[in-house]
């Protein structure tokens, strides 16, 4: 079908086109406790097409998926429709990516059986006890081959694994039972790292059983030491996105610090071509541009906006790309030094969010540790709120880093004066 679509696109009166062909093999296993609820196989191919048409001062485009089961006649009709619709879209002219000259070995398709087996073995080897154990889990082992082709001659293929593990943990005492939820993304299964992470979470479950309601703390320092911290760094990445900058939703400027009167650590973020066992280690981005390392934010000073070809060109950036991996540098103090004084370390939220446009943070506390000198109180309930525009002036990043799939971030991030609504 792919060859037919490319033939039809070459024959159509377009001013450019892009095709992405993704072939996926997925093995999935769903467990209740440690018994198999269901097994599934995915064997699918998706071909998405984007058609460009110049008219006047504009370059319009329209996109859609052409089913692999479509007939040639059906595919032709869809392309004709996209071509018409492209002329409805009045976007300033920009150009598509051209071949970079870089070559990369395509590589072997990852073995989903091995990935799935590793996950099953990790789950069968956890330090479960009578009071802390696994409620249920789901394993998703996926191998993908993505081929990108455009009218400028790019024809590149990325082959990569993309896996996911969802785990629900239980802990119980007398008749009281609690649960913790985790969703992990990765390339393959790093058995040692996964076992360490899962074992640590099992221990949180025991603590949640003895949690008391979060007191009304007013303003308090909050420590983020789990995957919730990703949301904090996504705020910075969002502000450095070319599309966001072009739409004036980011007022950050190259060379100008993002905040004044900063008392704490300053943030440095890089896009990375690869990060070990990330599920986002594609050699090329979704528009065929080669992915590379790039400094984005340097000690709170914007260095490079980055993002799609269209919006990057609108900003005058010619060599941009859509990054897959990011690394936020550590700060000046160790995690142990950040864990001093009075602070609330929250290890489980219902759903911690940083609204990237406004910087507003919000999340219900499911499990936290309130440290007041030598006293530690395990707390649950209530919420955090505030805004990153304030916190960026007084935030502290540990020297140590921790990886969450495609994000390498400080292992501990401390925000000062966060509003805490108690549950008392």
């Amino acid at each position, binding site marked *: 079908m792919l060859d037919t679509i490319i033939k039809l696109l070459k024959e159509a009166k377009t001013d450019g086109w892009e095709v992405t062909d993704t072939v996926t093999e997925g093995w999935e296993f769903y467990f209740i406790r440690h018994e198999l609820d269901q*097994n599934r196989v995915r064997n699918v191919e998706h071909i998405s097409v984007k058609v460009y048409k110049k008219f006047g001062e504009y370059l319009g485009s329209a*996109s859609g998926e052409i089913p692999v089961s479509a007939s040639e006649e059906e595919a032709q009709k869809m392309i004709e429709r996209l071509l018409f619709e492209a002329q409805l879209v009045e976007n300033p002219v920009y150009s598509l990516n051209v071949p970079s000259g870089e070559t990369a070995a395509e590589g072997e398709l990852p073995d989903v059986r091995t990935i799935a087996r590793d996950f099953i073995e990790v789950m069968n080897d956890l330090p479960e006890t009578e009071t802390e154990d696994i409620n249920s889990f789901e394993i998703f082992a996926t191998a993908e081959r993505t081929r990108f082709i455009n009218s400028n001659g790019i024809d590149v293929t990325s082959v990569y694994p993309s896996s996911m593990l969802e785990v629900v943990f239980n802990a119980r005492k007398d008749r009281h039972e609690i649960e913790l939820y985790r969703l992990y993304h990765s390339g393959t299964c790093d058995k040692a790292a996964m076992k360490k992470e899962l074992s640590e979470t099992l221990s949180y479950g025991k603590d949640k059983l003895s949690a008391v309601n979060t007191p009304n703390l007013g303003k308090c320092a909050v420590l983020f030491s789990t995957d919730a911290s990703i949301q904090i760094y996504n705020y910075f990445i969002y502000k450095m996105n070319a599309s966001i900058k072009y739409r004036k939703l980011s007022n950050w400027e190259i060379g100008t610090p993002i905040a004044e009167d900063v008392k704490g650590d300053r943030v440095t973020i890089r896009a990375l071509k690869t990060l070990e066992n990330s599920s986002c280690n594609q050699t090329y981005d979704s528009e065929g541009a080669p992915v590379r390392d790039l400094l984005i934010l340097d000690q709170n000073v914007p260095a490079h906006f980055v993002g799609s070809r269209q919006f990057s060109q609108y900003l005058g950036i010619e060599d941009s790309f859509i990054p897959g991996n990011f690394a936020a540098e550590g700060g000046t103090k160790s995690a142990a030094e950040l864990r001093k004084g009075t602070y609330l370390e929250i290890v489980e939220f219902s759903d911690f969010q940083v609204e990237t446009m406004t910087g507003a943070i919000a999340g*219900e506390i499911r499990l936290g540790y309130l440290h007041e000198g030598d006293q530690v109180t395990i707390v649950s309930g209530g919420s955090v*709120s505030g805004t990153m525009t304030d916190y960026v002036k007084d935030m502290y990043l540990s020297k140590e880093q921790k990886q969450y799939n495609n994000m390498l971030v400080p292992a501990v991030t401390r925000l000062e004066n966060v509003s805490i609504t108690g549950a008392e």
Partner: protein
Amino acid sequence: MKAKFSEYLNEIAPAMKELIAVLKERYDYVSVLSSDSVGFTAAISQYAKSVSNSTITTERGNVVRVYKDGLYSEYAFNRFDASNISGLCEEIIHALDSQLDLLKETGVKVYETPVLPDEPIVVFEEMETGSMPENTSLEKLVEELTAVSNEVVNSSEAIAECIVRGSSTHINKMFLTANRDMRQSYVYTEGMAAPIAMRDGRNELSYTSVSGRKGPEILSGLRDKALEAAKTAEELLDAEAIEPGEYEIITTPEVSGLIAHEAFGHGVEMDMFVKDRALGKEYINKRVGSDLVTMHEGALCTEEVASYAFDDEGTLAGDTIEIQNGILKTGVCDALSALRLGGKPTGNGKRENFEHKVYTRMTNTVFDAGNNTLDEMIASVKSGYLLKGMKSGMEDPKHWGIQCIIERGYEIKDGKLTGKVVAPIVMTGYVPDLLGSITMAGTDKEVFGSGACGKGHKEWVKVSDGGPCLKAKARLG
């Protein structure tokens, strides 16, 4: 007009029946769900436009479910050659057997489940729609959405941007077993407008929407709502942070809907009962809310984006009363969970798409209306907030915690709105306390279907929710 059923699905139906017949020689139960759903999305802003022939539910593909020795297995595929059914059967059997080999090697035991019943059912339903997405003039629609975006931005100097999006999907699904032939076709449409106000480096966004199991014609209703949302976005520029605490609250229908969805929608999805993940299992026929709380859930309880004729397991749609006058009566259930719990499925077995597993999922979740006017409710509040606009929510069925992020609150003192606006608001609490504190319910209810719902942090499906204005007490931060 009727939404005409997919010609493609009609064409492949005989081959799919052949596939089922061949697989039945090896398995005790075989079903095939085939989808062929088409649609469009047009997105307009001041800085960029896009048109796509995709929505979150457009798809073409198939999933086979088989049963043997207590285990259900599935194979999802979209490359299909009707002339080589035996080859496809071999491929399916080989792939699933390879998985079973791995499970054997790793010592995995099966959670045994009885075989699904397969009484004969024939359904052919082409639902009414005002127009079809396939026949919509996107030229005209792009012009209209562009005009809305421009008008909103021109309505105030503070409004710098207005993102407007309209999408419509023609859903076609065919569910086949040895004894069932179920085919449905319907159209749903949703549109949103998000004006963005900017002043002195502060950005604020408001959001409004239209939705329905209707054709793209409903997108014309976006204009007035978008202009109203622009005023809200500007208002948010002056909003203050709320003083954390417990307050009397009045929730407008979109916030009531968010509570319905997060409080007891997820909490009574009965696949969570199977895993002992929901407290609701122990509270059937017990009080979980005040007498004013009656809540329906089901594809048939209203006509919105999640109103279908049958679910993704071939169970006919229903209308379940989950809570009646504050008493939890039952939950909603997919077919496999019903087998495991010894109950009956309620038509709530849904997939994100053909590639995904079925879970028990919400469809439309709605509180019943009451007898009070909004003015009466406001007049009854000594100190509290009128809560408007929903941003997001998160369920916690195991502990009945609730998290709702709400766009804004209008202060009420001594029965009157003071004009003070606070934003954003995080509402948290214990579900029975929140529902038990409801003392007034409005006469008019509204249902909203522009969002999508995840299970945990994945498996996104279309749902709607709503209700009347409700007066209650909650913790806000």
